[in-house]
């Protein structure tokens, strides 16, 4: 069993019943992809804002495992260790 704490930006927490933190228990050896699939089962409104229908993390959303952006690690295959914190935040994209 892998215990994961998910921290959500406020704009995403609103799609998770207002909860800025989710404590989840996943199967041992779970990856970020497994975590997002798990979220999709229970919180589809949140999940589709993080990933598109191909399963890819949206370009302007960042998922961090601990301090690391998963784009700098193994993407959706990034492993989750027991007790790790996963943070999902909008990127500082924008312009006018």
């Amino acid at each position: 069993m892998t215990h994961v704490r998910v921290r959500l930006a406020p704009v995403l927490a609103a799609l998770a019943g207002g909860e800025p933190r989710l404590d989840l228990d996943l199967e041992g050896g779970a990856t970020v992809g497994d975590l997002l699939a798990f979220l999709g089962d229970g919180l589809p409104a949140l999940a589709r804002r993080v990933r598109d229908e191909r399963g890819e993390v949206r370009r302007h959303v960042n998922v961090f495992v601990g301090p690391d952006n998963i784009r700098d690690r193994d993407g959706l295959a990034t492993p989750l260790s027991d007790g790790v914190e996963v943070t999902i935040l909008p990127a500082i994209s924008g312009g006018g």
Partner: protein
Amino acid sequence: MTGHAIVLVGTTKGAFVLRPDASRTEVNIDGPHFAGDEVYSMALDTRAGRQRILAGRLSMHFGPGIAWSDDLGANWIDPPEGAIAFPPDTDAALQRVWQIEPAGDGEPDVIYAGVEPAALFRSTDAGESFDLVRGLWDHPHRPLWNPGGGGLCLHTIVRDHADPQTVWTAISSGGVYRTTDGGETWEARNRGIRTPFAPDPEPPEYGQCVHKMARHPGRPERLYLQHHWGTYRSDDRGDTWVSVGESMPADAPPVGSEPRPFGFPIVVHPHDPDTVYVIPLSSDMHRWTVDGRCRVFRSRDGGDTWEGLSDGLPQEHAYLTVLRDAFCADPLEPAGLWFGTRTGDVFASADEGDTWQSVARHLPPVVCVKAYAL
């Protein structure tokens, strides 16, 4: 038609619902709805007793979707799973909803959606869920379409009011495609539409950068079209097209042999199939109103001759851009006209274009204006 106009305005940072007074010179502005999201497509569906506003929204961070309101914008529904998405086998992801078009009264729960990447979706539950129209998605031309500046999008859906099996779509840059069997099969219908961006002077079968297309049910064989270069008319349901905009202004001296004018929207008068409106821009290199003057051009003879309409519109240092879905007519009598600009202005005419008023200022850049009557 009697009643009051209601005007849906989509911008790059939210949507607004305009409720004009009876004179259509003053409006109450309600919004922003979907604050921060692009809203490129909106529609009001009044069939089957509904008053449902549909909006194609796009969060730059969190993606696209279609939401609806059954109380004119007081509350919105965006289902958790989303109303529209590409099926897994397509390996495609929805980028933006460019057009929402309710079908005719004979199909009161059918709504079409045109999207990017270029595809057509169809709903049979009044917009609460959509299915991909496979016939167009599987068309052999599709892999050869190329994106225009706005992306590879299906932005126009024109239906045949007498025959629900016939639908025209327009794609940038793919051109016009028509089905006569309810979407099972599609044929390119671009004959005569010149493509100065291609080396061959002969128009290709497909690949045109159609910006907008319009049709009046009172003259079912006729279609109007604003291309990247040139305004066109078809009198045979899109089988062939002729350029009708050569008398309209463009950059001076003329930019070359390109058909005139450059522009995005084209609007047919709701009560007169021979009256059509465009808003010419200088050229594809200078996408603003010609000579710094904001003018709507009207033809009352199907495009054979045109007159510039400017009374009430800015005529000095007015470098405005009106995009493909930001110009429309309301169905009242006399017909009203409404357009929005990239500078966040909305202008209205309550007398078929003879005179104009500024009815909204300082909105975010306007990308969609749709007018109806309640």
